[in-house]
């Protein structure tokens, strides 16, 4: 398939970009539909806001190469020309120039080092795959995240997160919630249900192996390879998957005949033997230490711009930048995190609460930004009236009630850190959803400018200082929150 692709991609002279576009489209189409040894073929998956595509990888002298034009063409209009050993192309206002056999390129007038030499085969420019993370940000002008091990490249703020929670019903159900609609390829084999996400920018959960302490569905694993993310749910009974919530939720449960049949205690590798004594029907399982896992929520996003901090600065952009910095700071302190909104996505308040409650973090931190006042305001939930709990059912509106004291402890610890740095800080309750809908400790941080200029909210140094202080405060109460490093 690769060589066929080279033939199709043979380029004409300058000014035939339309013909070239058609050829590239044909190449991508053929690459997508021609059956072959696709399972063995090396590919790179590229995820952008507007499109997702995968490209074949070519090995040249032990180095993995990819066609640069094919990597950029789906994102916009590209023109190229070939003059002897020189190969030039233009994407929007970005000019790039490569020289055959050289490991240096010039993009927007700046020299860029490649991780291998540039190759030109049948007028098709090939660059080392590992150079894409250097080349694409310069050419496209947006942030690019590349995972070379799994060959998955994310352009801009695209990411689909997921949570998995076992519902201990009879039969048990594993409910997986995704931040965007998903359409995986599902395959089953004895003891496993595999979901391959070819087109979704799925990102890894806090830990690659999720354990559920259940005999029928003991665990699930997350794996990325050759551009594809795969979730494997391990079961001791045949499993089936069903979709709901506009394909944002996948529920995995034993197949009906298994669920209806007599309970057969299946052998679970590594499981404790079932208690045989009638006098002691419940096996005592030692408490599993809770892993320190924080959920960071960049408030607003998508159509909801939040406060218009200035003509050019929207609250949603500041909260996203703060969330990423806070993630870095928490992870630097040994705490794993999940950023609820790691792109410019729409998330309702209910969705934020559902994702957080199913993820069971030891703390949830919502980030807001304001143009009025100075310094930082820290909020815990102001619970609304009503909301009676009924047995095991907790009222949605006052789900936070039982953990308000712990949330306040966390807020005070963070406030103490701000005071140490002499940053103005106030701690208050606030009627701010989804704080009241969360079952675990939860705080909100509202960041105001350090001085009179609201644009200072965008200063990297200020954001880093705020993020670092919040992380230090949370780390200080790690024990009280119940998380283990």
């Amino acid at each position: 398939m690769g060589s066929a692709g080279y033939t199709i991609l043979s380029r004409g002279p300058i000014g035939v970009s339309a013909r070239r576009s058609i050829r590239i489209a044909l190449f991508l189409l053929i690459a997508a539909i021609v059956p072959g040894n696709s399972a063995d073929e090396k590919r790179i998956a590229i995820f952008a806001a507007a499109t997702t595509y995968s490209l074949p990888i070519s090995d040249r002298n032990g180095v993995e190469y990819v066609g640069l034009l094919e990597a950029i063409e789906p994102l916009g209009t590209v023109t190229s020309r070939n003059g002897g050993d020189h190969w030039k192309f233009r994407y929007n206002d970005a000019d790039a120039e490569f020289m055959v056999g050289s490991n240096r390129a010039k993009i927007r007038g700046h020299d860029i080092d490649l991780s291998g030499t540039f190759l030109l085969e049948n007028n098709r420019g090939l660059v080392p795959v590992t150079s894409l993370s250097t080349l694409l940000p310069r050419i496209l002008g947006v942030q690019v995240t590349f995972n070379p091990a799994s060959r998955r490249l994310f352009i801009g703020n695209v990411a689909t997160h997921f949570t998995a929670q076992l519902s201990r019903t009879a039969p048990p159900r594993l409910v997986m919630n995704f931040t965007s609609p998903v359409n995986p390829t599902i395959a089953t084999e004895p003891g496993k249900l595999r979901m391959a996400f070819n087109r979704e920018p799925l990102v890894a959960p806090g830990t690659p192996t999720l354990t559920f302490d259940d005999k029928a569905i003991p665990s699930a694993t997350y794996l990325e390879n050759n551009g594809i993310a795969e979730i494997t749910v391990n079961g001791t009974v045949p499993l089936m998957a069903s979709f709901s919530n506009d394909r944002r939720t996948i529920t995995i449960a034993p197949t009906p005949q298994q669920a209806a049949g007599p309970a057969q205690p299946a052998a679970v590798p590594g499981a404790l033997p079932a208690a045989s004594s009638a006098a002691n029907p419940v096996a005592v399982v030692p408490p599993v230490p809770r892993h320190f896992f924080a959920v960071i929520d960049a408030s607003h996003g998508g159509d909801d711009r939040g406060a218009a901090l200035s003509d050019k600065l929207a609250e949603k952009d500041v909260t996203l930048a703060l969330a990423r910095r806070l993630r870095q700071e928490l992870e630097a302190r040994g705490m794993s995190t999940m950023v609820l909104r790691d792109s410019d996505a729409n998330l309702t308040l209910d969705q934020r609460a559902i994702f957080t409650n199913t993820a069971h973090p030891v703390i949830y931190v919502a980030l807001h930004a304001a143009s009025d006042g100075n310094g930082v305001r820290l909020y815990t939930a102001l619970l609304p009236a009503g909301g009676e709990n009924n047995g095991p059912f907790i009222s949605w509106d006052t789900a936070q009630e039982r953990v308000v004291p712990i949330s306040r402890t966390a807020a005070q610890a963070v406030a103490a850190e701000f005071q140490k740095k002499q940053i103005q800080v106030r701690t208050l309750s606030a009627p701010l959803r989804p704080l009241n809908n969360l079952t675990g400790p939860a705080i909100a941080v509202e960041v105001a400018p350090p001085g009179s200029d609201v644009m200072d909210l965008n200063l990297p140094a200020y954001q880093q200082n705020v993020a670092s202080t919040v992380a230090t405060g949370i780390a200080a109460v790690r024990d009280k929150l119940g998380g283990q490093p």
Partner: protein
Amino acid sequence: MIPRHLLIGVGVLLLAVLAMGFYAGRMRGRAAQVAPAVADTRPVAPPATGPTEQVTLFVADDAAAMLRPQAASIPLPSARQQRAEDLLRALLGIYLAKTSPHPLAAGAEVRAVYLVDPGLAVIDLNAAFANGHRSGVLEEELTVTSLIQTLTANIPGILRVKILVDGKDRETLAGHADLSDFYDAGAVSQLVAQMESAQ
């Protein structure tokens, strides 16, 4: 033969008709250029007549990020519901003044307050109030708590407060303060004290 004086009279009348038509046409053009009068969206002032009463308004202060109790003497009717509406309109009068410590959007108004037994007050704001409100956790919280605390401090028996906008449920005031739930009067009172003690 038509008499001469009659011809002159008809001619003068025709000239007058033409002149009046020309004048009316110009006046119409001018009227079209003049912008229509802007509706007076200021809240209705409390009734100027009737006995005045001493009340406490809880006025939001952006600079101090707290509510300041402010004594006021305003004429209030005897009907409970009408009193509640007039109280909040007096409060909005402060916010809409030029020297407001917590400015609200022009046209912000309390449409009505409904007191429903047992202990529920429903405040119905107009769309201009919410649509023009500044967005921010603290700004919105100050507005909401100011309305609720002013109401509960002066009208006994209110335990819960619900805020509507144009008679309908709304998720938040301006992106932050929750309007979907019922406010607990006691919890708001504690929050007001918390704001004060944090100074």
